[in-house]
């Protein structure tokens, strides 16, 4: 298991091929930590994300480290299947992008239509594939038909049969340099992108806009469900807790050792504290969701908690940027 599907899949691949690396290092080097608040046209309700765009952890890791991945998408599902089978028959595990809804080894209540779920396919037998899924405690099995549907589901960020696997993985990489690159990119993303819904500005937008949520909900029950999802998105939808802030704290702790910089250790502890604050927000949201009518005052209260995170992270990332 791993904290997050994409970083978990990439980490497992790298370790399989001989590069000893942890998930926090993969996540931090690829500057996975982020924040965005938006209402995409295809969605009925606003949403927020706490990491970079799906696919960027693998993409940026590859670009920054020089570890070469073979990456392919397909128009023809049969061709995709044949290529996957050929690799598996050579004992080469393959990472694929899927729609979580079709991964039927999970219970029905867990499965939602989300096209950005990455897993490693590690073998096959007859019509069955063996899956190493970051969110499942054992090796899972999935039938051919279900996997094909998962790999070729349509909709937002459709997988299009995407698969990737590393080739020529070195035993060691210049970790120090990569950590610095990753931290610089993250601090830029959180502080400097001149768009009001991204980074720290995005957290402030979330704080301001949450009071408008009732106009998107058909009734109080749906609104309560959406408020509860704040908890799920922050804590349990593959973030490692605190909207990836705890994973990032672990990354900074490892970075302190690699760079022999004790100040990064202190910043790691500060990030742990920030993660705790996000968790407090998540718990507050879960309580509000169960509190009967979701009033404007309750949403303003959540907005205040969210704005506090923006202030903390602005200070934190400014300090972190100066440290590197």
């Amino acid at each position, binding site marked *: 298991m791993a*904290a997050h599907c994409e970083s978990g899949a990439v980490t497992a691949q790298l370790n399989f091929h001989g590069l000893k690396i942890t998930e926090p290092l993969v996540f931090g080097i690829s500057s996975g930590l982020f924040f965005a608040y938006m209402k995409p046209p295809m969605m009925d309700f606003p949403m927020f994300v706490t990491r970079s765009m799906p696919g960027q952890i693998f993409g940026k890791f590859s670009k920054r480290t020089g570890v070469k991945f073979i990456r392919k998408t397909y128009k023809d599902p049969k061709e995709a299947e044949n290529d996957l089978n050929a690799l598996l028959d050579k004992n080469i595990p393959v990472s694929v992008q899927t729609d979580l809804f079709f991964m039927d080894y999970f219970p029905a209540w867990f499965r939602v*239509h989300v096209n950005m779920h990455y897993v490693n396919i590690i073998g096959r037998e007859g019509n069955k594939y063996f899956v190493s899924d*970051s969110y499942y405690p054992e090796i899972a099995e999935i039938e051919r038909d279900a996997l094909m549907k998962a790999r070729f589901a349509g909709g937002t960020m459709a997988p299009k049969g995407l698969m990737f696997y590393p080739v020529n993985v070195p035993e060691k990489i210049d970790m120090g340099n990569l950590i610095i690159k990753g931290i610089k990119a993250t601090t830029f993303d959180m502080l400097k992108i001149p768009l009001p819904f991204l980074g720290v500005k995005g957290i402030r937008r979330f704080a301001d806009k949450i009071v408008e949520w009732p106009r998107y909900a058909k009734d109080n*029950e749906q609104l309560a469900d959406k408020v509860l999802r704040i908890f799920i998105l922050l804590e349990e939808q593959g973030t490692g807790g605190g909207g990836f802030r705890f994973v990032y704290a672990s990354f900074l702790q490892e970075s302190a050792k690699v760079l022999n910089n004790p100040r990064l250790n202190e910043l790691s502890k500060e990030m742990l504290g920030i993660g705790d604050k996000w968790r407090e927000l998540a718990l507050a949201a879960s309580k509000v969701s169960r509190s009967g009518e979701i009033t404007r005052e309750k949403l303003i209260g959540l907005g205040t908690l969210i704005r506090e995170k923006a202030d903390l992270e602005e200070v934190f990332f400014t300090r972190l940027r100066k440290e590197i």
Partner: protein
Amino acid sequence: MKEQDLKVDFKEQQIILYAEKEDGSVSPVQTGSYISKNFIGDFYDYTAKINYEMTEKLKSGEISPICFFMTIEELTVAELASRAGLSKLKVRKHLNLKGFRKASVSDLVKYADSFNIPVANFFQLIKTREDKKWDPGYRNDLEKTESVMISQTNTNNPLIVETKIFHNTK
């Protein structure tokens, strides 16, 4: 967040969280899901309410089966249109019964694939019985009651599914 503060006993859903351990390291901890353990009842209540409301609307002819499944699978018109490879205009027309009657079989196959149900389930409601309460069930969602199990198996004909209802003798 300390390791001991976040451990939850819930085997049905395990997750990895990062926490500070006793030795001061921030590392992965496997734990049960807090939200699932404490809110699964709320989730089932909310889902059951939606399912019930939509089932009644479906039975009364207020909505079409497409609207029914689109709602319970939490898809928007735009998302469903993209997944099914149909225009948004067409999907909107199919949301009511009048428009649904004009849907072609190939449209229904596309919708069924998107919803991950057999085409047959657009034309029937399969119910299971649990504690004297009837709940709708559908493919890939085996309702395990004390006495009855349902399974739906594809056949080589993409329009025909074999629905088996049998007593659980275990």
